[in-house]
């Protein structure tokens, strides 16, 4: 994986290795010079001049080594970031491609830890493996060779010392990897928890949940801390043991050299050199130990990154072949026996799709009117009793340019129906056809360019108004840039002109994350502006059910009228006004179509559900 990302930077990698070699050579040279110096000074044979030359050479070697080291660090750092940024981008792209089911099961906090934290580990992996581990490994090897050249017995001592140290590290390596994997999991869980509750305070507090949140927080925090303490303890014990080994090695070197010196086979300079060299072994070996630890951590991260890369989206896989291109003009939509169940979530008690569809809770009064043939009044999923399928055998056709109003209670499958249109999920049975082409034969990008969605909840980013409205399309080289004039025109036509002029930096004004500071109506209008800028041919509108005042609603109504003109539309309607704008009506119940037909015909037929709905007062029922 790393190699793939390093390939574009081959030249700099080569330079890095070259500099690394130079740095090691200079580090090995220093003690040699010191040894000569000691011999010259103690032996009395060296003139003052010779001593000065040796000392000056030593000085120069030290300085040169430092400069090279600095360049090395710069290169490593730069390469580390460049490669991991590329990897991070690819991973984010990959994760975005994954199915909604994947995202439903994971909090953003957890994924941030995967993408940013784990990939950050990989940056460390690069800098430690390439620069430090290799550099220090070579330094150790170089020292050992030079020590062997000076005295083979001391060489054996050094070698034994180095081997024992490395064995010690290897012995704990597997344990460390396991611990780091667990720490990382605990960390992701903890951060996910914190993220979830720090954004949900408005719902936790009035309901008195604060004490429960705190109670769940303690074990998460302490469990995480305990795992890290275990890891650290292991590290500290190993470090202390290596101190002791070092002391033994230095003492052995001193003893052996002392014997050789007394026997007259070794000069005092060489004794000095050997003690110095063996002492020099400690620092790179310690670095190797530390780096092995971070490599263990990094490897854990790399493994999780790999796991993430292995996951493949089910949606879209079929479309990789010869992707069909959708023709121009408003498309015809046809559902043919569509059945669908969510397979990605832990079964919930009521079988409802999680999170969404929260704002269209039904009042008790609507029970009789919509629920006439299911006397138990239970949740729709319980009705069929077949499986947890959300949609059963849905079949209908919508002619080009017509607008379909979808009505139904909470949990009847309205939102799921729209999700299928975007291939956020693929159908389990049956097919959805656009202009006679199966959606699964259409590339995802192609499909989503032609279908626009306005949801009740508007996702706004902490980015400029421009980027929010174009959804970063101007960063995409494959797309034509959207000019500011177009954006301003879209905003003006939606009645947001005064709002735009009130912004301090116009289109460059940064919006706050999650649309803080915008009213619900403004957010809705911004969502419409987005769709206008995309100019899709099929519009899916999950109408905001409430939360808007009459004046803003007037603005919205006019905007929706214009949006639907000349386009095929599917509207999940909550208001009479919106329903009246539709050409066809489809009523869902328990994931089945219970009524479908032209609106005018249904409204005129006293036997239809739609007729009864209109009599009951649609708005009360559907709001």
């Amino acid at each position: 994986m790393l190699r793939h990302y390093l390939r574009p930077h081959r030249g700099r990698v080569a330079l890095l290795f070259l500099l690394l070699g130079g740095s090691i050579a200079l580090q090995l040279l220093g003690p040699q010079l010191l040894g000569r110096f000691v011999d010259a000074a103690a032996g009395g044979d060296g003139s003052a001049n010779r001593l000065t030359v040796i000392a000056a050479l030593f000085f120069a070697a030290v300085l040169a080594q430092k400069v090279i080291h600095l360049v090395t660090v710069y290169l490593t750092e730069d390469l580390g970031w460049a490669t991991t940024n590329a990897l991070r981008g690819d991973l984010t792209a990959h994760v975005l491609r994954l199915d909604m089911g994947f995202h439903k099961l994971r909090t953003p906090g957890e994924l941030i830890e995967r993408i940013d934290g784990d990939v950050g580990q990989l940056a460390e992996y690069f800098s430690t493996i390439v620069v430090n581990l290799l550099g220090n490994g070579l330094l150790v090897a170089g020292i050992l060779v030079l020590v062997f050249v000076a005295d083979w017995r001391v060489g054996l001592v050094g070698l034994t010392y180095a081997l024992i140290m490395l064995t010690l590290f290897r012995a704990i390596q597997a344990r460390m990897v396991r611990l780091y994997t667990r720490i990382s999991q605990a960390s992701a869980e903890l951060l996910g928890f914190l993220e979830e509750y720090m954004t949900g305070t408005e719902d936790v507090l009035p309901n008195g949940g604060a004490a429960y949140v705190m109670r769940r927080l303690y074990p998460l925090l302490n469990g995480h801390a305990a795992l890290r303490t275990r890891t650290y303890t292991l590290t500290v014990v190993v470090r202390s043991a290596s101190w002791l080994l070092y002391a033994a090695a230095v003492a052995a070197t001193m003893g052996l050299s002392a014997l050789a010196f007394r026997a007259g086979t070794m000069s005092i300079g060489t004794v000095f050199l050997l003690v110095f060299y063996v002492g020099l072994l400690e620092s790179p070996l310690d670095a190797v130990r530390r780096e092995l630890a971070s490599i263990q951590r990094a490897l854990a991260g790399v493994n999780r990154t790999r796991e993430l890369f292995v996951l493949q989206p089910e949606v879209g896989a079929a479309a990789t072949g010869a992707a069909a291109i959708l023709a121009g003009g408003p498309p015809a939509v046809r559902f043919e026996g569509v059945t669908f169940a969510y397979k990605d979530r832990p079964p919930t008690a009521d079988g409802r799709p999680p999170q969404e569809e929260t704002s269209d809770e039904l009042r008790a009064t609507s029970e009789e009117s919509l629920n006439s043939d299911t006397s138990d009044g239970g949740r729709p999923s319980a009705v069929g009793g077949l499986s947890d399928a959300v949609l059963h055998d849905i079949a209908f056709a919508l002619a080009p340019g017509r607008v379909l109003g979808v009505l139904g209670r909470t949990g009847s499958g309205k939102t799921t129906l729209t999700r299928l249109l975007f291939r956020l999920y693929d159908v389990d049975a049956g097919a959805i056809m656009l202009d006679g082409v199966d959606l699964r034969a259409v590339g995802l990008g192609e499909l989503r360019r032609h279908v626009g969605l306005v949801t009740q909840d508007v996702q706004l980013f902490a980015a400029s108004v421009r980027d929010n409205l174009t959804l970063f399309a101007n960063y995409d080289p494959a797309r034509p840039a959207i000019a500011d004039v177009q954006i301003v025109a879209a905003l003006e036509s939606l009645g947001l002109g005064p709002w735009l002029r009130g912004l301090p930096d116009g289109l460059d004004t940064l919006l706050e994350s999650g649309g803080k500071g915008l009213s619900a109506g403004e957010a809705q209008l911004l969502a419409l502006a987005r769709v206008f800028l995309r100019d899709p041919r099929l519009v899916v509108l999950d109408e905001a059910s409430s939360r808007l005042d009459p004046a803003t609603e007037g603005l919205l109504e006019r905007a929706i009228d214009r949006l639907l003109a000349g386009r095929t539309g599917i509207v999940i309607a909550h208001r009479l006004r919106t329903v009246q704008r539709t050409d066809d009506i489809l009523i869902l119940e328990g994931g089945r179509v219970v009524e479908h037909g032209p609106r005018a015909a249904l409204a005129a037929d006293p036997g239809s559900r739609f007729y009864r709905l209109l009599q009951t007062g649609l708005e009360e029922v559907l709001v």
Partner: protein
Amino acid sequence: MTTGILKSAKSAQSADKLSVWRGTWALIRFRPWYFAANLGLGVVVLGSELIPGLISRRFFDELTGAAPATLGIGTLLALFVGVQLGRATLNIGYEWGGWLVRSVNNVLMRVNFMANILAKPAARPMPVESGDAIHRLDRDVGDFADFPTWLPQMIGQGFFFTFAIAIMARINPWITLVAVLPLLAVFFINRVAWRRFLLYDRATRVASSRVTGFLGEILGGVQAVKVADAETGALRYFDALSEARRRAGVRQNTFLTLSFSIGQSMGDVAVALVVLLAGQAIQSGSMTIGDLTLFVTYLTIAVHFPADMGSFMSEIAQQRVVLDRLHELHPDAPPASIVAHRPIYEKGDAPAVISPVKGTADRLERLEVVGLTYLHAAQGREGATSEAASGEWRVASGDNGTTDDQRPTTIDDSSLITRHSSLVTGISDATFTLPRGSFTVITGRVGSGKTTLLRALLGLLPPQERRGALERGDGGRPGGPLRPAARRLHPAGAAPVQPGGCATTS
């Protein structure tokens, strides 16, 4: 009927900043024994590094005959190993103490964060994006939790430094003086460097926050991104943010290495200077090979002290930034709450939550709101007055304590809900009374203050300068805090987010 007027707590803005040292002291005192172990053993372990140097010196001196062979090489080497054995053992305690200080403080500060977030006026949005907040909770909390462990390290190193210089000065004061000068230079180099480092560090953190913040947004709104086929554009934007972070990160780390490597070089420069000067001294016999060994050993270790001292000084300034960043996460709580002591239940002994048992006395008989005002600044208007709230409100319970008052209620105060201008929204001087069992509809245009009114009633807005009165008819608990009223009001919001696994008491 009793009435009590309660001045709410002063706003956080008026509270003093938490100084780095006060914060550190609070962390040290939280589990003082961990720190005591860290400090006491630190001084012993780091200070005792003087002994191996002395032993090597004696070794070379006895070997070359510069000193009488009184101890013998064997004894010296056994001593050497023995001392290191002792140091290695004590080191476990030293590092472990430091780790526990770090670990416990990490937990404490995160607990404090969550407690503060849960205590903040809930309707106030998180002042930073959640991804950014996560980043701060991870890195900044880690930094500050680690900070107390600097002290034992610096004290231990200082101990070594002082005695090493004293020992060297007794051997040769002139060479010592020349050798120590570059070491002192390290300190000043690091001191000057920290200003820039701080600048770079801040830039890196901001760039990092942007990356994680944006990542959180596109992952949180993945459906919107997918549906709009905005993956490529969003990814390019993400790449641009990443690239900005790379530049900041490379600049910071290269600079860090530069100043660090100057520090390290100065140690080697000092050794080189000693080598230059020692030549004559050794030839003249005023200095032995053992002395040279001692100088080289001591100088290589001693240079860490001024270098780390320089970093430590920058770290102090850095902690100021860290504390400010942490306080930004919960601006309504006093800064001292970041390090406030509270149980963290390390042994998994957190007590169960006791659900309040409610009797008839807890019933909200009448909600009386008098002159309630809450204004907030509109979006995108920087510099506009942030918030000003005043007013008084009462929660009252009738004497009869029954629920038969089912008459429709009208809120007949014309000034109840006012849209002030395009700039400021909120509620101003709202006054009304709602009896128990009544059903009231609040309606109005977008931005007219419907939600703000509800939030104010639920106690979800910061109670800045708001006077509140909790009135009860049974004579109990007059003038209680505003928040209890919230327990008796149950919200049914337009778009509830129900976090997983959350139990409710109301």
